[in-house]
């Protein structure tokens, strides 16, 4: 037995709805018309929201904000395959994921305004806030999925990381655990071509990121991340397999970050406008609109109505966001421990003293009531 092949792998790429809106009927997943319309609505709304958030930041009414535009299909569709009790952990760019999970977007704005009260997800949802040190949540999600396995009710955990983040050792250890313990976990690599200024080609020197899965005995697939139907089909089948004890899946969604990295970034410093143009023609919304229109599920009037409804919704959310009074500084001491130790009781008193020093004795009654549990 000389030089023999001991293992082989083909990595597949799934595309169902082409950039110009043509459908591969054989691959079309079973999706109700209502769900198709939901996908489009979510993508539409989050794009408008994204645009408004950037305007807010530009006019000094919001902190640094990471743009979503271009990645709506990758973000809004996978949550549609899940139950509220399934765990979801997106990245900091994952506003579309939280939105599709039902988050009230005033809180997303509050978060990006540097206010901890923005970390608020719908009651009953198993949503977790993203990790800012990228990738550090990936092994935690293995644990969340493991917890689901212990519960034995078919729950799963789904998470995202960027193409840049796929270079972190965290992904390696997470997939090692997920594969080893056959955890009901779905790992989506949101490959948007860039990690701030560093192109995808500067990460792993492999043609795809999906192929990493093989090294862990994990199912892996690449998907056109701007194709809502392909994202749906891949995620739904991964979730179904996971629920049945079939183990984890790694899904690479190839998409594109149409905007800057964040509002603090200037992408023209490092990338070519032409590349962006190429990707503009692969827009996830446009192709979905073409498709829905061809199916007679959509028309200009519906589009106009949705636009109007979205404007109103955003106005309401922005107003609610801006009406939040400044938080009480004492909030920060709440919920650091189930029961605050003596040192924190002393320190909180010191902060009270400082507040009085700054604003006089009345300040404590003028501030909004402190939130959270203390001690």
């Amino acid at each position, binding site marked *: 037995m000389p030089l023999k092949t001991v293992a082989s792998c083909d990595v597949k790429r799934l595309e169902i709805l082409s950039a110009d809106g043509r459908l591969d009927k054989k691959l079309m997943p079973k999706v109700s018309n209502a769900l198709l319309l939901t996908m489009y609505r979510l993508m539409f709304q989050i794009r408008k929201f994204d645009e408004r958030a950037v305007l807010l930041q530009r006019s000094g009414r919001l902190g640094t904000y990471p743009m979503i535009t271009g990645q709506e299909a990758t973000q809004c569709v996978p949550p549609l395959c899940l139950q509220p009790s399934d*765990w979801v952990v997106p990245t900091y760019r994952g506003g579309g994921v939280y939105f599709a999970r039902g988050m009230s977007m005033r809180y997303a704005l509050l978060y990006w305004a540097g206010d*901890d*009260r923005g*970390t*608020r*997800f719908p009651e009953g949802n*198993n949503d*977790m*806030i993203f*990790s800012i*040190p990228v990738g*550090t*949540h*990936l*092994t*935690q*999600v*293995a*644990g*969340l*999925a*493991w*917890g*689901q396995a*212990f*519960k034995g009710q078919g729950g799963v*955990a789904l998470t995202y990381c960027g193409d840049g983040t796929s270079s972190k*050792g*965290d992904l*390696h*250890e*997470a997939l*090692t*655990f997920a594969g*080893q*313990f056959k955890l009901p976990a779905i790992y989506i690599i949101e490959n948007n071509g860039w990690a701030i200024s560093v192109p995808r080609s500067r990460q792993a020197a492999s043609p795809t990121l999906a192929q990493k899965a093989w090294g862990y005995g994990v199912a892996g697939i690449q998907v056109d991340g701007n194709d809502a139907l392909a994202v749906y089909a891949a995620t739904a089948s991964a979730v179904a397999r996971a629920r049945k004890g079939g183990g984890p899946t790694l899904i690479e969604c190839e998409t594109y970050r149409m905007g800057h990295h964040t509002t603090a970034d200037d992408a023209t410093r490092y990338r070519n406008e032409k590349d962006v143009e190429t990707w503009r023609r692969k827009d996830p919304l446009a192709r979905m609109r073409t498709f829905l229109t061809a199916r007679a599920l959509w028309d200009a009037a519906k589009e106009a109505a949705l636009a109007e409804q979205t404007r109103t919704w955003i106005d309401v959310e922005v107003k609610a966001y801006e009406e939040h009074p400044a938080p009480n500084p004492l909030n*920060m001491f*709440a*919920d*650091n*421990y*189930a029961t605050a*130790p*003596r*040192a924190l009781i002393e320190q909180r008193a010191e902060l009270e003293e400082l507040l009085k020093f700054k604003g006089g004795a009345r300040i404590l009654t003028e501030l909004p009531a402190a*939130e*959270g*549990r203390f001690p």
Partner: protein
Amino acid sequence: MTIASKPAATQVLNLVSAVNQALDQALAKDSRVMLLGEDVGRNGGVFRATEGLWAKYGERRVVDTPLAEIGIMGSAIGLAVSGMRPVAEIQFDGFLPSVFDQVVCHLGRIRSRSRGRLSVPLVLRAPHGGLIHAPEHHSESPEAYFCHTPGIKVVIPSTPYDAKGLLLAAIEDPDPVVFFEPKLLYRSAKGEVPTGYYTLEIGKARVVKEGRDLTLLTWGAMTVTCERAAERLEREDGASIEIIDLRTLTPLDIDAVLGSVEKTGRCVIAHEAPNTGSWAAELSALIGERALLKLLAPVARVGGWDIRMPLFRLEPYYIPDADRIVLAARKTLNF
């Protein structure tokens, strides 16, 4: 000493058996408890702390993991968030730095970050300290890194009784607890341990012995070294020495510390870590801040040198021994 419920029956155990018994009783009592780590399963742990538990509770609850500490720590965090009560083992103190990222960025932050919605009730167990003739990175005392990190608790028993009661309390604790086990004492420390389930309050120091002239403030295996030093100081110098074993490093039992030092006016802090920036620095600073006028001499620190610990042949010259404590105590007594 605070005892939730101290059953009558006791037996003599060494420290590692006390740990083993605590884990056994926690697994028996609470189905959410599970153990994970390298070699904790079939092999029963490299120190035998988990001996017999894999056979008794099965490989679902006593899990041999892949060799991946971030995986162990991160998945333990996820398990805890999702409602389990994981007890994760990192095989040696010296391998803890690989989980600092999870510890510093997440372990103590998730409760606050989620505004109290999520919590991380896990225990991170690791052996602690030196003098067991093991290779580099097997004799470390990394407690200062953890004590500087908000949101977690740091516990280190020095007797079998404390080990069992504090470990059970740590497992019950709604917040993450780093639980150090002085490996030098695993087999050498023996004592009466109640056979039943009991917990000891986290955050309480132990007065090892009372004294009037000088306080030896310490934790971990150094407690035993301090006992030896105190004996000699009492015999040779006629000094009356008080020894406080902190048992919990954070949250600190500041009353016990100040109470003793205000009484004696003299304090030597003994520990194994590189001295600069150690937990002894915090203790010394706190005493200076809160008991300055009671001090009859500067608070002295006796710790490891600020260098890489040499291989084990020279470890006894790196980690303070009774002689070094005696020397420091004499200077403090004669100040």
